[in-house]
């Protein structure tokens, strides 16, 4: 008997895949005690925790202020150094401008910088150079180079080579070729990446302290361990404030640099 023509092919492999995923979810839930009852006891605990956080209390204003300024310094320094280092690395990593023997090592450096979470890098630097802000700065420089370097290289790989060709045809030396033919095409995107990374470094700088790499994170972690939840709450609110100020700052920086580039931001 001839089967009815089927408009849609059934994909048995996909069906099997979905079933396997569902089975695994059920298995993982049971293994990790991820159950409704467990959630309800957790909620109960959470309510008590929030109760103890309120009202927020700035128990140690000096420590808080010191931690916040240190975090800010870590973020700004790491962003500045990171941007400075990622500019040449990103440029060298662009495969349309550089020969493979130059671009592959640069791409390897970028890949290495991207392979670990900043916390892991921070732990490594704490072990290497000791506790304190230096380790935090170095960890965030690595994160910045990984992020900006990669996106910058990709931005350069997308530029119009016609403009570069025209500059080359004038007999411009290589550095002028870069500064006139290449950089104007990627500058606004670079500013975008850099301000985004500043934003992200500000967030990360509050966290590297947890592993001893300086900043407000250390204060926060200590407060947690002392069960000073009202102080924890105050610290968290301050971090939120700082991040918001950072966001405003980043927007302002973008505005300053990209005023000339408004047309292409549409």
């Amino acid at each position: 008997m001839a089967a009815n023509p089927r408009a849609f092919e059934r994909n048995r492999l996909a069906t099997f895949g979905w079933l396997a995923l569902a089975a695994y979810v059920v298995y993982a839930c049971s293994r990790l005690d991820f159950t409704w009852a467990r959630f309800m006891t957790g909620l109960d605990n959470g309510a008590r925790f929030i109760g103890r956080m309120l009202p927020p209390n700035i128990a140690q204003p000096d420590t808080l202020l010191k931690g916040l300024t240190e975090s800010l310094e870590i973020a700004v320094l790491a962003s500045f150094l990171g941007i400075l280092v990622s500019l040449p690395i990103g440029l060298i990593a662009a495969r349309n401008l550089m020969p493979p023997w130059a671009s592959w090592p640069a791409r390897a450096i970028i890949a290495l910088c991207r392979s670990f979470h900043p916390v892991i890098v921070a732990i490594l630097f704490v072990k290497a150079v000791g506790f304190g802000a230096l380790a935090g700065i170095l960890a965030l420089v690595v994160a910045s180079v990984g992020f900006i370097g990669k996106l910058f290289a990709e931005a350069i790989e997308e530029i119009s080579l016609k403009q570069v060709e025209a500059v080359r045809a004038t007999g411009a030396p290589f550095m002028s070729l870069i500064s006139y033919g290449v950089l104007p095409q990627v500058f606004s995107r670079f500013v975008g990446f850099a301000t985004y990374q500043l934003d992200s470094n500000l967030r990360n700088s509050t966290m590297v302290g947890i592993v001893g790499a300086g900043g407000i994170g250390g204060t926060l972690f200590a407060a947690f361990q002392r069960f000073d939840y009202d102080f924890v709450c105050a610290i968290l609110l301050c971090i939120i404030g700082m991040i918001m100020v950072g966001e405003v700052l980043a927007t302002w920086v973008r505005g300053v640099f990209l005023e000339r580039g408004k047309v292409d931001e549409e």
Partner: protein
Amino acid sequence: MTEGIATALSIRNLDKEYTRGKPVLRAITLAIGATGITAIIGPSGTGKSTLIRCINRLVEPTSGEIVFQGQDLVKLDRRALRLARRQIGMVFQEYNLVERLTVMENLLCGRLGYVAPLKAWLRKYPQGDIDRAFSLLDTVGLAGFANQRADSLSGGQRQRVGIARAIMQEPKLLLADEPTSSLDPKTSVEIMELIGRVCRDSGRGNAIPVIINMHDVELAKRFADRIIGMSDGRIVYDGAPAGLTDAMLKTVYGGEAWLQ
């Protein structure tokens, strides 16, 4: 054609293959006189653009000789090539302006070969270059546009900037790769007139030769002093515009229905 007149550029047995065994240019031999407009016509894909780009080595020739100002451009090393390129202005079909730079910055690009990279980056050009740029803007009809960004200009205006940029180099030879193909007929004529004007007087009373790729035969006949017809990587016509008969055009482009 050019016997008896000083030769500005002499191409001998120029071959170009992008892939082995598939020549795009076959033994091109050509001498360009010290003045005048030479138009290269021919069907698409016949190597006109490759020929022009081989001259300043934006495309590397496979073999042959290109003698310009007493040296064989094909043999030059990177640095010598860079110095030779300063003497050769180029105008592009799609203008190839640096879109996000101003008109003035684009004009000064023509001086990059003469200004140290750091000074160029800091926009510290000799005052003479800046004065010349302003006067050239006047010449090409864009006075007052100096601080506009290139991407805010129309096609015709962009090509004027492209021509001014090339002339800023004070070139001894001007190459133009389909300079009017992206423009409307009226603007095309204006641009061709402008090219004719600047090559008769490139700013310091010097006439320079121009080599232009064109696909508009009528425009080529109207403005060129000499026409070179290319077909399948070879030169099949070389002579005055008047000699470009229908029979000749048939040889260049093949077919004849389009001539009716």
